[in-house]
């Protein structure tokens, strides 16, 4: 019976089993990719402006303080739904303006309160960033984050 206890068989089962789970993972990711592109995100609304806004978000490492869809640092508020929180669904222009004004007014300088740096963004960049946040708020995130005022 010792013949079946060999390490090469152990290695094969380890590789084979892992490959099986990895293949399932790849297939599910492929399905999820199609789901995201076709269903859960606003692909049609993914304009150049939204994409530029995402690059503004990345270029300034906003995620190293804020979270978006709950991911990033936890030093500053979640922004995945900030557009909704600021009533962007009923008044998109108003919410967009609020985002731009907010960015321009930082840092607040309030003693004892966390400070957001002043990012030297052009009007165009601010518009793009607001478009990106508006776009992100339209994604179907399975009901997350939990907000009481619903």
């Amino acid at each position, binding site marked *: 019976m010792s013949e*079946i*206890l060999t390490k090469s*068989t*152990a290695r094969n*089962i380890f590789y084979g089993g892992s490959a*099986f789970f990895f293949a399932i993972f790849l297939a599910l990711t492929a399905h999820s990719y199609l789901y995201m592109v076709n*269903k859960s995100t606003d692909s049609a609304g993914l304009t150049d402006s939204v994409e530029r806004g995402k690059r503004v978000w990345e270029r300034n490492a906003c995620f190293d303080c804020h979270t978006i869809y709950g991911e990033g640092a936890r030093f500053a508020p979640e922004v995945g739904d900030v557009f909704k929180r600021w009533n962007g669904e009923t008044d998109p222009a108003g919410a967009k303006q609020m985002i731009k004004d907010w960015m321009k007014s930082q840092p607040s300088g309030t003693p004892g309160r966390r400070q957001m740096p002043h990012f030297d963004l052009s009007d165009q960049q601010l518009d793009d960033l607001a478009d990106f946040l508006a776009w992100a708020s339209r994604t179907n995130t399975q009901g997350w984050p939990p907000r009481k005022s619903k």
Partner: protein
Amino acid sequence: MRREEVVDISTAVVDEDGWGPLSGLPGHPLMWVLIASELAVFGLALLGYAGARLHDPIAFAAAQDHLDRLAGVINTAVLLTSGFFAALAVDARARGRRGAARLRLTLAAALGVVFLVVKSVEYSRDLAQGFDIDSGGFFTIYFLITGFHALHVVLGIIILAIVLRFDSPGNYETGASFWHMVDLVWIVIFPCLYLLR
């Protein structure tokens, strides 16, 4: 010193051939690590199913009524018979009857294909009725559990094919153990998903 007391515990974990309690089981010990992992996964999924069902038993019962129970019963018979052939194959190989073992293992794998055919007919009907993995509630869980099981049938057929190619008695035991695990999982998930309501 305390060292003396603990030596016994450790020898129970590490015996001579190094596989500890796994070495008494039929087939390669690492296959049993895989089997135990799989059973844990399906077990947790079924417990999750029971929990999710308690949130909305009425909708779950309504969804369940769309399943084809007869197809499930047929597939149960197919898998159990397939397992029977696999067990016969191990038995034959252990007694050195290579040819008989091959024939029986091939039959076992062929019945696995039959299972997959029946299952895909079922799936296509479910999809035609508008139920898919995104439907939420019962159908998401149903597709996940049965789909994951069906993928194990696919993997099992591949493993049986490898055993046919490298047909040592040990490999027969190892391959058949995986195949019976796939059997066992179906025996547990079938009543839970199809029959209980």
